[in-house]
């Protein structure tokens, strides 16, 4: 296991930007929960409330030209990478203005322009593509990196194994970000993985560089991600980021979490990455409120935009099947 150099590259103003980014995601997803409960949103959705520091910390370390693949819990990664909130919200409403033009939905957010190769609703489904992109960057000798986000539960699928094995074997320009929130739907880590409390052990099977990170500390995540991206970009091989984080809400919106203890929920609540950053920055209530108000304003605008956006024509369903 590698250790991360600790001298921070993150100044105060950057940290404030991180807070803005995390608040945007938090308020966005709270609004999504509200509108879903109100019956306005089709399908089913997953929020990453509690995991904002991972999205912001990693995406802020990515550079122009870098690409990534996300999961069923994709709002945070997508917003953190800069896709306009209007386009993301519109997608959740299944509108033409959505970032996938209404074809994808919450679990299939795409934004090729910003290197978003797609959120994936099949666990592990996006990992091989990220290895393949990292291979292409290596073959063409481009200073680009492909990043995969996935959860602890995803480390149990064969696709995960084949992807990490191949990435290390070929030293593709890839970074694997494991968001270990200790839950796979209703299944706690100890019930789904023999190494649930130390996912970095997975990397040992490939001799892959692994780094443990506190996923509630956005600065630490950013630093680890920056170092990992450098490593991969330089062609020194892929890196496995073992990020410890917390799922503060249910697996999906509306999940009664009958399977989850009060204590476990409380523990998650006690690890809110936003409160933590707020303290770290020593913000007064007023300062924080103004950050918050900005975020809220953007989200409200996104909602207005999405609600008044355009429905696809039914027959559009037969478009985009082939190039």
């Amino acid at each position, binding site marked *: 296991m590698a250790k991360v150099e600790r001298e921070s590259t993150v100044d105060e103003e950057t940290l404030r930007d991180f807070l803005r980014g995390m608040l945007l995601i938090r308020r966005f997803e709270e609004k999504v929960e509200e509108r879903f409960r109100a019956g306005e949103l*089709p*399908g*089913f959705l997953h929020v990453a409330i509690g995991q904002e520091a991972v999205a912001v910390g990693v995406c802020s370390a990515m550079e122009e030209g870098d690409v990534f693949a996300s999961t069923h819990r994709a709002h945070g990664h997508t917003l953190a990478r800069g896709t306009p909130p209007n386009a993301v919200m519109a*997608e959740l409403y*299944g*509108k033409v203005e959505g970032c*996938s033009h*209404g*074809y*994808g*939905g*919450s*679990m*299939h957010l795409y934004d090729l322009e910003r290197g978003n190769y797609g959120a*994936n*609703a*099949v*666990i*592990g*489904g996006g990992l091989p593509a990220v290895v393949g992109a990292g291979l292409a960057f290596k073959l063409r000798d481009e200073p680009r990196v492909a990043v995969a986000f996935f959860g602890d*539960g*995803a480390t*149990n*699928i*064969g*696709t995960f194994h084949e992807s990490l094995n191949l990435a290390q074997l070929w030293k593709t320009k890839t970074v694997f970000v494991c968001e270990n929130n200790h839950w*796979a*739907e*209703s*299944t706690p880590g100890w*019930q*789904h*993985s023999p190494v649930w409390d130390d996912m970095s052990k997975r990397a040992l099977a490939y001799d892959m560089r692994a780094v443990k990170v506190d996923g509630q500390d956005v600065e630490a995540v950013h630093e680890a991600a920056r170092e990992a991206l450098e490593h991969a970009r330089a062609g020194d091989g892929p890196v496995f980021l073992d990020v410890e984080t917390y799922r503060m809400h249910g697996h999906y919106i509306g999940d009664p979490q*009958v*399977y989850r203890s009060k204590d476990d929920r409380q523990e998650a609540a006690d690890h809110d990455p936003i409160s933590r950053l707020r303290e770290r920055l020593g913000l007064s209530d007023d300062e924080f409120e103004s950050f918050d108000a900005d975020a809220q304003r953007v989200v409200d605008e996104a909602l207005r935009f999405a609600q008044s956006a355009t*429905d*696809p*024509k*039914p*027959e*559009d*369903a*037969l478009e985009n*099947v082939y190039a």
Partner: protein
Amino acid sequence: MPDVTYREAVRDALGAAMRADESVFIMGEDIAEMGGSMGVTQGLLDEFGPERVRNTPISEMAIVGTGIGAAMAGMRPVVEIMYEDFLTLSLEQIVNQAAKHRYMSGGQVTVPLTIRTQGGAGWSPGAQHAQQLEAWLVHIPGLKVVYPSTPEDVRGLLWTSIYDDNPVVFFEHRLLYPVKGPVPEELEPIPLGKARVVREGTDVTVVAIGPLVHRALEAATKAEEEGISVEVVDPRTLQPLDESALVESVKKTNRAVVAHEAVTRMGFGAEVAAVLQYQAFDYLDAPIERVGAKFAPLAFAPVMEQYVVPHAEDVLAAIKRTVGK
């Protein structure tokens, strides 16, 4: 007869089978404390405990494969693949292993495994959570394939599948879980390979499976109003297929429509059409109509999703074409 939902009927069959036989146990993702992503297995953990109601990691290949090994070792596992889209992760074990062990061993091995899965569109789950893939399994010798449309059928057929000594792939449909229907007080096993005439009629036969059985009945009622008498037949078991029941009906009505939610192209309806045109050639007064999903993945936006999947109106239109109205 009491009314129960399709969901309760599945749960009944699982519970009854587990009570009746120690060798029956269930495995799948989130089937224990949560009771399954569709709530089907709720309560079973409390009654049977964690040894027989097993939450698994996200490992579709191993879920099926361990089921195969346990079955070879004398158990009767019932494994669940949460969405049939994820069958794509376990087909190696289903197709190369479960379906072929008995054959490759020259009859030594028995694999009494039941693989439950569910899927289906109509609620905007998106392109990776709504596919209907039953046709694939029908192509594979060594597998039995079941796709019930009512609470009574799903309960009786699941019981029989569990006690069948062959691997059975058992399809349920997401939209059918809340559907209520009458079931006998006592669980009555239903034999595999027997179709059911859901509605009698004289002008045209609609062979329908899963949710399309219900949409076909709607269409039949509407057709009635226009003076068209529709017979609706549900094969229930796709493999083995009760060909004679389908053929007999068509020989009576001289017209046929085949309906399912899966993509029409290369869907189960193709096989039924091929069988019917062959065995009832001289009886057919019109081309066999196929009703299924249009040729596209399932979009998220409800208007697009609804445009792709088949509705009662589509069945009705097909019925009318067969009678030239």
